[in-house]
């Protein structure tokens, strides 16, 4: 069992962490303090097989507890950490192929002279995305969820411990490419940013309403391709606002740089809010 939080074994891996357990499960924990940003963790979700013999009479037990309460506790702890340290944490969600990683690496290039940026990369397998992010100049940790379809707050807490985030910095979490499950899992982020590219359908907000409902900002990416595709921007924005009347929308192309300034402006505004009340000391 993991000593940080008592987590069990499973399919998830975070770069750089591995240990072996008596029960035949393993996760990795390599602690290399000279190479921050090059870690991976291995998680699991094993059951605690509690077999208690003996019979008693059937009775009712009132639980009234949220199924995601464990996740929400970790998320609250993460959020509190971000708040205390003035860290802006954004959870980037989209379907696969919307250009999240390109947007992120361009954002890092565009903003890292003013901000310290760290990235948590979530993918089912491989550390390819974390490698790409590191090349653009930010520290990154890759989480591989194995069979999982989303990141949870507990995986993020481990990755945060590796990243040793600076006060007043920015943390981007690139969630697993999936417009369904990540909507339900609070990671402790300040806001969810949903990225939709114009090569997808304009009706995605209606098809995946939960995600667009949960997001504070929608980025319409790859606008440089608009002349070549049949994508109704106005309809898409209308659908998104039908699901979430308060959602902000930024249109940009991470490849050409068009519209990126609006995105930076939004981030800077969020950063200011995150850093409000943060004292210089400590």
């Amino acid at each position: 069992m993991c000593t940080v939080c008592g987590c069990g074994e499973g399919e998830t891996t975070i770069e750089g962490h591995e240990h072996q357990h008596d029960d035949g499960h393993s996760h990795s924990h390599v602690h290399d303090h000279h190479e921050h940003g090059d870690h991976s963790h291995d998680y699991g979700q094993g059951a605690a097989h509690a077999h208690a013999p003996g019979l008693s009479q059937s009775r009712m037990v009132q639980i009234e507890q949220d199924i995601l309460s464990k996740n929400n506790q970790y998320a609250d702890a993460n959020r509190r950490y971000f708040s205390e340290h003035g860290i802006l944490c954004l959870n980037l969600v989209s379907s696969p192929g919307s250009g999240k990683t390109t947007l992120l690496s361009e954002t890092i290039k565009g903003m890292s002279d003013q901000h310290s940026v760290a990235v948590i990369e979530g993918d089912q397998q491989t550390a390819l995305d974390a490698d790409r992010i590191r090349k653009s100049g930010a520290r990154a940790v890759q989480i591989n969820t194995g069979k999982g379809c989303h990141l949870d707050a507990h995986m993020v807490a481990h990755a945060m411990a590796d990243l040793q985030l600076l006060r007043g910095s920015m943390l981007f979490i690139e969630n697993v490419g999936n417009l369904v499950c990540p909507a339900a899992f609070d990671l402790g982020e300040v806001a969810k940013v949903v990225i939709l590219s114009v090569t997808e359908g304009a009706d995605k907000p209606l098809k995946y309403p939960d995600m667009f409902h949960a997001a504070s900002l929608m980025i319409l990416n790859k606008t440089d391709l608009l002349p070549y595709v049949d994508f109704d921007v106005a309809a898409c924005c209308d659908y998104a606002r039908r699901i979430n009347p308060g959602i902000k929308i930024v249109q940009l192309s991470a490849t050409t740089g068009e519209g990126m300034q609006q995105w930076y402006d939004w981030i800077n505004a969020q950063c200011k809010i995150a850093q409000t009340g943060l004292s210089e000391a400590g």
Partner: protein
Amino acid sequence: MHEMSLCEGVLQVIEDSAAAQKFSQVKTVWLELGRFACVEPEAMRFSFDVVMKGTLADGAKLELIDLPANVWCLSCSKHIDIEQRYDACPSCGDYQLQISGGEEMRIKQLEVE
């Protein structure tokens, strides 16, 4: 398989309360699911059986309670019922709706031995 992780969450809560409430077997689990909770009942039932195998809730019955959302139509000034988050008001066709709740995923109670 998002429902699979949810069922693992259910199992964790069950195991925690088994220690606290001193029971060794779960016969029935009642789950309250909000209509907009992004949970597919059939997938939930399937995952539930798989996840509970070999645990103290092996073979337990799963009872799902559907919780409608509380929806207020600003145009009609009345409570209405909708099936999906993007639905219009069935009376006036307007989308100006205030939705509260409907995202619940709660373990209500257990029948235990």
